[in-house]
């Protein structure tokens, strides 16, 4: 069983797919709701304190906005722990999304730099693409069975 970072980290569907195919998903797995009544689309379930942006200094310099550093304090350790990653770009907001595009850029860069096996997919726009999308994820995850190698 490999530890697989999912992007968008809030995607319940990706989280479920990774778990379903026998691996441990690493992400926030927050439910994106039809109606948004919280501060952000990916509002954390618990209060984050001003200490998190300071911890985030490990991943981003002080001139990087506090919101980015606060998110990196949460996702940075998960990226370090990850043995593989599934990245879905251009996803629909409802599929799962992160509130801050600058954090997205840093997360994706950090994953690509880490040297772990990564599957990068574009969000499907047709049913046929959807089937291929799930098949590609399954194939990638199946390949991770032996010691995390793709």
């Amino acid at each position: 069983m490999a530890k697989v970072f999912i992007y968008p980290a809030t995607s319940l569907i990706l989280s479920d797919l990774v778990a379903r195919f026998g691996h441990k998903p690493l992400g926030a797995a927050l439910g994106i709701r039809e109606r948004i009544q919280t501060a952000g689309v990916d509002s954390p379930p618990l209060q984050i304190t001003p200490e998190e942006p300071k911890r985030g200094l490990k991943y981003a310099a002080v001139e990087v906005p506090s919101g980015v550093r606060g998110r990196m304090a949460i996702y940075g350790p998960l990226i370090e722990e990850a043995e593989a990653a599934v990245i879905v770009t251009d996803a629909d907001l409802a599929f799962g999304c992160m509130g801050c595009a600058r954090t997205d850029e840093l997360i994706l860069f950090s994953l690509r730099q880490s040297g772990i096996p990564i599957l990068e997919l574009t969000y499907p726009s047709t049913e046929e693409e959807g089937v291929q999308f799930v098949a590609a994820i399954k194939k990638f995850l199946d390949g991770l069975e032996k010691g995390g190698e793709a």
Partner: protein
Amino acid sequence: MSRKVRVAQLSCGPEYSGVQKEIYDAAESVDAEIFFPDIALADVERAVDAFGLDVRSADLKLMIARGKALVEGKVDADGVFIGTCFRCAEAAIVRNELRRYIHENSRLPVVSYSFTERTTSGTLLTRMEALTTIARRRALLAREEQTGITMGVDSGSSTTKAVVMKDNEIVGTGWHPTTEVIKSAESAVADALEMAGLTREDIQAIGTTGYGRFLIGKHFGADLIQEELTVNSKGAVYLAGHQQGSATVIDIGGMDNKAISVIDGIPGTFTMGGICAGASGRFLEMTAKRLGVDITELGPLAMKGMGKNVPMNSYCIVFGTQSLVNALAAGSSREDVAAAACHSVAEQVFEQQLQEIDIKEPVIMVGGTSLIEGLVYAMGQLLQTEIVVPPHSQYIGAVGSALLASGFIEGE
């Protein structure tokens, strides 16, 4: 008990910056409640397309959709707080454009702020209090004439000012450096009363403002304790004789600067310096001290100099002072250095704060620094307009307080 003022929060990043609790606390302390306009996820992209600003961050898209919902009347609010992370360029564009859009298309008071993880509820308090004042006290803020005998006390970070007014005239003033807050206020009040030839018993109502407003308000048994954003706006248009229509009020204070876009004497949008005090009146005090002149002499000195002859454009008060010392060591004249210091402060206020509000004439400068003519000149040059400095401009907060306090005489 009055109902809570409902403040709509449009933001990106406060939760992950760890400051959402500070925003809640600031609102709670002025009996306001923060809420997030309820938006359907499906409406977000549609609203962003209609707004026309193509941003990447989902939370910024959400801000835009919420702003549109407020303007279109789909969501009710008494005021709007717009907050984004300090140093985020994408967020700064959205914050500014959204603030402008709401200001131009609704009557909702808006305050915008860029926060760091170090932002506290205390920093946000005055801004949040101003939003609630505008929502709760519109009738009081509409007052254009002072009646009876009232006193206003402004407990600022550098100086404490007191004014006694009688039948729409200023009859007494007092001014003391702020050392011990209550003692300084007592001294300023004593001077104002002596000048007016009145006693405390003659005063029918008292208003307080400034950083020490709560402490001195309690001490004097004030009828009105109100933050300086709304009070100074009122005082500025009153003294400038421009109570109706649009105006811009600039107050470069001892610790922070205020830039307020005013309509009929009531703030529409406003900013207060918060992250840095490099461009405050304190820098001019330090400049005067280093040049060996009284602060009152700095303005005339600056008018004799050429600021362009001295490089001084640091955002930091320490580096600014270093530029000053270097210039003097290199043989620059005191006049040129004084002019450069004034230009430096005016330029920073122009770049950092005036860009966040809509400048509409007349531009009224108030507060103690408005007496530094070199600073007023530099600001006029930057804005390409003639700056109005009304009489008694240094007493602006005290005058505004005395004016508004007279509303409480009739209330008895």
